[in-house]
C-alpha cells in the first residue's frame, strides 16, 4: 500500500462502515415496531430499499457530487469520480483506501433518506417513495453533504462544525420529513384512532442496533482509530445514556410512567444530538447535550397533536429538533470555541447559519419534490389501501401468521401458476376489506 496508509485506521473505518450499514436495518425495526400490524412491512421496506437505490446512485454520481473537489462556488463536487472513475484499491484518502472512505460515506447517504420515512408511515405509495428517495438523495443529500463536509463546501468553509452529521443528516432528514408530510397529509384516523406500536420489543431491537451502529457513525467519523475517535466514542455513549434518562424523567413527570418507547426514543434523540458534537465537547458537555436533547425531544413529539401535522413516527420531533439541539449546543459547549469556553457567540452564530440554511433548503426542496411526485404519479395511497393496510396493497404480504398448528387461514393458488410466465393479478382493490 502507498505511504501514509495505516492498517489500523483502515480496519477501524471498514468496520465502522459495517456498523453504519447495520443502522439502516436497525432504523427499519425501530420504525417498523412503532406502526400498526398492517403496515410493518412497508415501513421496513422504506428503509431497506434505500440500501439498493442509494448504493447505485452513489457509484453513478453521488460520491463525486458529494466528495469530488469543489467546482468553485462551494455548492457541488466536480465530476472527476463519476462512476468511481480512476479509483483503485491503492488510491488513498488520508491514511485509508478511498474505497473504505467511500463505503463509509455511502452508508450515511443510505440512512438519511430512510430516516425521512418515519414521517410518512402507513400512507405512502411505495413506488412514489422509491422515486422520492432517488430524487431526494440526488438533489438534497449529495449537495448538502458536500456543503458540510467537503473542504471546499460553503458551510465547511464558514467554519460550521458538524463532526458526524447533525446538520447534514439529521436536520436535513427531519426537515425533509416535514416537507413531505405536508404534501401527504394526515393518516386516516389521526388524533382519533389509537395507533399504538404493534411491537415494542421490535422498537427496542431497532434502538439497540442503532445505538451499536452509531459508534461507527460517530467515532468512525474521525476516519482514523485515534484519540479523537476515543473521545467521540465515549461522548456518544454518555450523551445517549443521559438522553434516555432525560426523556424518561420528562415522561415520569408528565404521564406518570417510564415507557420503553420513551427509553428507545430518548436514546435515539441523544444519539442524534451528540452526532455533530461528539468530538467537540468534553464529557460533561456531552452529558448536558444528552439530558437536554432527551427532555426537549420528549416535549417536541407532542407538538404534532397541538399543531395538527401528522409526523407519524416523530421525525421532526426527534431528528430535526435533536439535530438542531446538538448543532447549536456546539456553540455553547465546544471545548475551545463554545460559550462555556469563554469564546463568545461567534461559533454559535456559525452553527445557527449552517443549521438554518440546511433546514430551509431541505424543507423547501423536499416539499417541491413531494408535490411534484404527488401531482404526477401520486404519492398517497388510496383510503381503501390505507385502511386495509399498505402491506397488502403494495407488498402483497402479511407481516405475521401465528395461526395455530396444522391448519391455516389461506389457500394457495395452484402453484403451477407460479411457474407460468403470465403475470398474475394482485388483489383487485375493490375486493379488499375496508
Amino acid at each position, binding site marked *: 500500500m502507498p505511504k501514509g496508509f495505516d492498517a489500523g485506521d483502515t480496519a477501524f473505518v471498514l468496520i465502522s462502515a459495517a456498523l453504519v450499514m447495520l443502522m439502516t436495518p436497525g432504523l427499519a425495526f425501530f420504525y417498523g415496531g412503532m406502526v400498526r400490524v398492517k403496515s410493518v412491512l412497508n415501513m421496513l421496506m422504506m428503509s431497506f430499499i434505500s440500501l439498493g437505490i442509494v448504493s447505485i446512485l452513489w457509484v453513478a454520481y453521488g460520491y463525486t457530487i458529494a466528495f469530488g473537489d469543489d467546482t468553485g462556488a462551494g455548492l457541488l463536487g466536480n465530476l472527476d469520480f463519476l462512476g468511481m472513475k480512476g479509483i483503485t484499491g491503492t488510491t488513498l484518502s488520508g491514511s485509508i483506501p478511498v474505497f473504505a472512505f467511500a463505503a463509509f460515506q455511502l452508508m450515511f447517504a443510505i440512512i438519511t433518506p430512510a430516516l425521512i420515512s418515519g414521517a410518512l408511515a402507513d400512507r405512502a405509495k411505495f413506488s412514489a417513495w422509491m422515486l422520492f428517495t432517488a430524487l431526494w438523495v440526488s438533489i438534497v443529500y449529495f449537495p448538502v453533504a458536500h456543503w458540510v463536509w467537503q473542504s471546499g463546501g460553503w458551510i465547511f468553509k464558514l467554519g460550521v462544525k458538524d463532526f458526524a452529521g447533525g446538520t447534514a443528516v439529521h436536520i436535513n432528514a427531519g426537515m425533509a420529513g416535514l416537507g413531505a408530510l405536508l404534501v401527504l397529509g394526515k393518516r386516516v384516523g389521526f388524533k382519533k384512532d389509537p395507533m399504538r406500536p404493534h411491537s415494542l420489543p421490535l422498537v427496542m431491537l431497532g434502538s439497540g442496533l442503532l445505538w451499536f451502529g452509531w459508534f461507527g457513525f460517530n467515532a468512525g467519523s474521525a476516519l482514523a482509530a485515534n484519540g479523537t475517535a476515543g473521545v467521540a466514542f465515549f461522548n456518544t455513549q454518555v450523551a445517549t445514556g443521559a438522553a434516555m434518562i432525560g426523556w424518561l424523567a420528562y415522561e415520569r413527570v408528565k404521564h406518570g410512567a417510564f415507557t420503553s418507547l420513551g427509553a428507545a426514543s430518548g436514546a435515539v434523540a441523544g444519539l442524534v444530538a451528540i452526532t455533530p458534537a461528539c468530538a467537540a465537547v468534553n464529557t460533561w458537555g456531552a452529558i448536558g447535550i444528552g439530558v437536554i436533547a432527551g427532555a426537549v425531544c420528549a416535549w417536541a413529539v407532542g407538538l404534532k397533536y397541538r399543531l395538527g401535522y401528522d409526523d407519524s413516527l416523530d421525525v421532526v420531533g426527534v431528528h430535526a429538533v435533536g439535530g438542531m439541539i446538538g448543532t447549536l449546543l456546539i456553540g455553547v459547549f465546544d471545548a475551545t470555541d463554545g460559550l462555556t469556553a469563554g469564546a463568545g457567540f461567534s461559533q454559535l452564530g456559525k452553527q445557527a447559519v449552517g443549521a438554518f440554511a440546511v433546514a430551509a433548503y431541505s424543507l423547501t426542496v423536499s416539499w417541491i419534490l413531494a408535490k411534484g411526485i404527488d401531482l404526477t404519479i401520486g404519492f398517497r395511497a388510496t383510503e381503501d389501501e390505507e*385502511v386495509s393496510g399498505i402491506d397488502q396493497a403494495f407488498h402483497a*404480504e402479511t407481516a405475521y401468521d401465528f395461526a395455530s398448528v396444522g391448519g391455516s*387461514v*389461506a*389457500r*394457495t393458488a395452484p402453484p403451477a401458476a407460479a411457474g407460468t410466465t403470465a403475470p398474475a393479478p394482485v*388483489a383487485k382493490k375493490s375486493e379488499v376489506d375496508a
Partner: protein
Amino acid sequence: MKLVTAVIKPHRLDDVKEALQSFGVHGLTVTEASGYGRQRGHTEVYRGAEYTVDLVPKVRIEVLVEDDDADGLIDVVVKAARTGKIGDGKVWAVPVETAVRVRTGERGPDAL
C-alpha cells in the same frame, strides 16, 4: 334474555361500542374472528407462490340483553356497523335460558 352476536368489520368496533353505550348497554364480549363470504379477500405473494387469502379479518361481538331490548339493540348494532360495502357482516340473536353474573351469582336480567 337473548344473546345477540354480531360479526362486523374490525374498524367499526369503536362506533358499535359507542352506539351500544348510548343505547344503554354497558357490557359486551369481543373475539377476533375471520370471515368467509361474498367479500373476496386478497392475493399474497411469497417467492413466486401466490396465495389467495380468502378469510377476511372480522370482529365478533356478543351481547346479552333482556328480551324486549333485543330488537332495538340489533338495529343499533346494524346501523353503527354499516359501511354499505360488501363484507359488513351479520347479526343474529339466540334465546338464552339462564345468565349469571360470576361476581355476585345474580341470575337473569340482574346479571347483565
